[in-house]
């Protein structure tokens, strides 16, 4: 695990992402690659993931040259995967690739299926960080979001995680949901904080089709004028209030949507924000690696049956390959660096990427209170954080 010199954030340099696409149903706001299944073909999927790993390593043996700093099992609903299969996958990975001793190994879990025995199984399989999709403690909000767990399920799941031996647990919250009030969002933050998690991700609900990877039920309703979202001012208030509640409980905001007890930020997520490399396995999984002064981002086949078919036939399951030039990499590092509370060393970023220094724009943003210097780095102010995208556009 290293500290990224541009942002000062300790982050995984090489991570492995496994996408587990299966869900019991599709939530109306979700744009992820998923597959709805009544019975989960867990063993077949585990075989295929390990099969893809072999294909990827054969294609590029250099993946084995550096130890993995993190493994992340996301979805979909990875907590529908039998712990034994998860264990088999993690062992397979550890056999094929060197693994750092302090590697962060996360799994996303849905409170619906998160009893102590199951979670202990994941712990025993090697998972050391759990991310719980709590979303809200308000029954109405959970219903709007199409979640089938209850507020008490979420609290039970959290306690189960502790009982199963997890010392690093994150809770996901969503705000800006239709019908959600400021008081409701604050109450969600309070109840989440009361559980004393190491980490909270608090996401503003994203609905616009342009901002999503795919059409969702919500994006369609929004376009048809059938979705009443809280207005921008109300959402801004929620974000600020939630941040204050979490900070008061020792969960400091370190990224636009992420809060953590100091030292407990997600190393794997930090990899994405600091230009780290990731090997991606599973349907629709997105990986990235450096390539000279540029980079290569690959997306696996998004259709689960087609992904399975390809891997089982011994073919690389590529759907998209995007070549990134130095300028694209620069834009990403800027865009992502500005999401971080630790800030980004703009001068060094400009120098390393041969970009034109935007000194005048930076000065104006600092003068107007959107950006502030922290040592050699610049970060968005509280006000600036709400305008992250707009400010980034002024600096590229």
């Amino acid at each position: 695990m290293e500290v990224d010199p541009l942002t000062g954030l300790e982050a995984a340099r090489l991570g492995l992402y496994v996408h587990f696409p299966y869900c019991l149903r599709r939530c109306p706001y979700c744009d992820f690659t998923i597959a709805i299944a009544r019975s989960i073909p867990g063993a077949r999927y585990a075989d295929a993931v390990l099969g893809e790993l072999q294909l990827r390593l054969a294609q590029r043996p250099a993946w084995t040259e550096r130890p993995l700093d993190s493994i992340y099992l996301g979805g979909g609903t990875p907590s529908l995967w039998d712990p034994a299969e998860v264990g088999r996958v993690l062992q397979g990975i550890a056999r094929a690739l060197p693994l750092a001793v302090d590697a962060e190994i996360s799994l996303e879990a849905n409170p619906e299926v998160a009893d102590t025995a199951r979670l202990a199984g994941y712990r025993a399989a090697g998972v050391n960080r759990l991310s719980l999709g709590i979303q809200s403690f308000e029954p109405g909000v959970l219903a709007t979001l199409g979640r089938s767990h209850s507020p008490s399920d979420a609290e039970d799941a959290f306690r189960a995680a502790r009982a199963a031996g997890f010392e690093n647990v994150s809770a996901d919250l969503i705000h800006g949901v239709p019908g959600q009030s400021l008081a409701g969002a604050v109450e969600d933050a309070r109840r989440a904080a009361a559980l004393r998690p190491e980490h909270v991700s608090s996401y503003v609900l994203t609905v616009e089709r342009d901002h999503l990877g795919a059409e969702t039920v919500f994006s369609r309703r929004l376009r048809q004028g059938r979705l009443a979202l809280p207005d921008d001012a109300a959402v801004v208030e929620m974000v600020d209030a939630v941040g204050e509640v979490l900070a008061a409980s020792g969960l400091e905001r370190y990224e636009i949507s992420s809060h953590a007890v100091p030292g407990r930020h997600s190393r794997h997520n930090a990899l994405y924000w600091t230009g780290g490399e990731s090997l991606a396995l599973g349907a629709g999984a997105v990986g990235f690696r450096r390539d000279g002064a540029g980079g290569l981002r690959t997306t696996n086949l998004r259709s689960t049956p087609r992904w399975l078919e390809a891997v089982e036939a011994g073919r690389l399951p590529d759907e998209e390959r995007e070549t990134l030039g130095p300028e694209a990499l620069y834009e990403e590092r800027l865009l992502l660096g500005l999401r971080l509370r630790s800030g980004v060393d703009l001068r060094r970023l400009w120098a390393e990427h041969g970009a034109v220094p935007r000194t005048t724009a930076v000065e104006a943003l600092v003068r107007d209170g959107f950006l502030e210097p922290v040592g050699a780095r610049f970060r968005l102010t509280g006000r600036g954080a709400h305008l992250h995208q707009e400010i980034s556009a002024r600096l590229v």
Partner: protein
Amino acid sequence: MPAENAHLRNFCIIAHIDHGKSTLADRLLDRTGTVSKREAQDQFLDNMELERERGITIKAQSVRMQYRAKDGKDYVLNLIDTPGHVDFAYEVSRSLAACEGALLVVDASQGVEAQTLANVYMALDQNLEVIPVINKIDLPSADVARTRAEIEDVIGIDASTAVPTSAKEGIGIEEILEAVVARVPPPKGDPAAPLKALIFDSWYDSYRGVVVLVRVLEGALELKQQILLLSNGKKFEVQELGVYAPFSRPVPRLIAGEVGVLVANVKEIHDAKVGDTITEAARPTAEPFPGFQEVKPMVFSGVFPIDSADYENLRDALEKLQLNDSAFTYEPETSTALGFGFRCGYLGLLHMEIVQERLEREYGLSLITTAPSVVYKVFSVKGEEMLIDNPAKLPASQHIEHMEEPVLTCHIHVPDEYLGAILKLCQDRRGVQKDIKYLGSSGKRVQVTYGMPLSEVVFDFFDKLKSVSRGYASLDYELAGYQTSDLVKLDVLINGDPVDALSVIVHRDRAYQRGRDVCARLKEVIPKQMYEVAIQAAIGSRVIARETISAMRKNVLAKCYGGDISRKRKLLEKQKEGKKRMKQVGSVEIPQEAFLAVLKTEG
């Protein structure tokens, strides 16, 4: 009449914009075998991309056709094309002067339109033989008898011999060619007299220099001849002579009565102006062909590059455009808000749009154009007279004794059911009614004549006219001098700072309404910024209207992991592109269309 000319016929086509001139011209070329089927690109005469798209003709063309008539003799027919828009009335008059006859094309269901009427009168003034052609008789709504009656009533010419035609279906083409041969007189003019030739169009060709379209009136043009241009006394040697049939074909000489192309090492289009007379240096003609005018721009606007680094490119592009357009002028202009740019002069709004489109399309420039202005006469308290074509240059009101603005006489043709709407529109535009009369015996069509300030017509009057009349009204106008008006400068302030490029000169009575409209319109077109933006309209130091654009509250995306990153970067790139279409004025980003929006106000 000299025998050399007996087989020659020079004619043009007068038609309203969509009454089928180009299609008819194509049929004539087709029937005379001038253009083979393979070459027949649709609408041969309109060869500029823009002209084709807009269905209008900007540059005149001429084509020579060979035709064996029913009398068994061979004739040479020169079809001279004329520009088809009111902005180019002078060019039309010069094209007509090169002809002895004109085909008047009238749509069998639409009837006579204002612009056609203006051109027909011009043709009759110049003693052209006018042959009416009633086109589009294939349409179900065609009414040949009524159209015939209307031509007689409205124009006052005999329409009994009008040729019923469908250019689209190829009906009546033969009859038109026969009518041209029989009725258009062969050209007069003595080939042995001293040379007198009229320039009726000219353009710049990057290989050959200026190419001139001429009609030889007397004498003959010969290769190697030393010629003299009467308006400026400049001399050139004839290097090339040719005719279009329809592609350029060299000829050794052009004699009295003929139409052709002349290349004489003329480097600048300003040295070969439309309407000028060419003669032989050694044996000059006694007097020039009458009617030459220096064409002067009537409308001016600022043109600025969005990216100031494009200034040099813009200058090069303007220079190239001017090579080919003697009516277009430009000179450097500096704006506090927009930086370095140019003040450009145009014949009218269409001309302005054409220039802008060419700059953006052919030269790939992103530009901001400010609201067009007419030329005001400003009389100072000290008794000086100034010509002001830029609101930013208007002196402070205490130094102005009075101002005058250019006025037009506008003739509008409209079916009577839209008359009320047209009268209201003219009244709203400070028009003064001069005349109103019903055309023809049907009593369904009306011609109204208004005196109207040019500034009220330049912007969107034509569009409004069309929209209130469902496209049925047509407009012709001529300049009618200057009149004293109570005018004020309306300034726009963004966050307290005046933006010079947004100033307009308006009539005092309408300043308040205009101020409110401008602020409301700018509020619509300027996107939310990271700061609150105040838009104010002011006369002098007095603010008369205000709007506020509230600050953007939120523009941030929640999740940003593996697969999201490319999508978010692309969103960023899209935003960056969007910013390129904006001009940073102070701390506010103003989109390019805002600068024209100040005139497009009433809903």
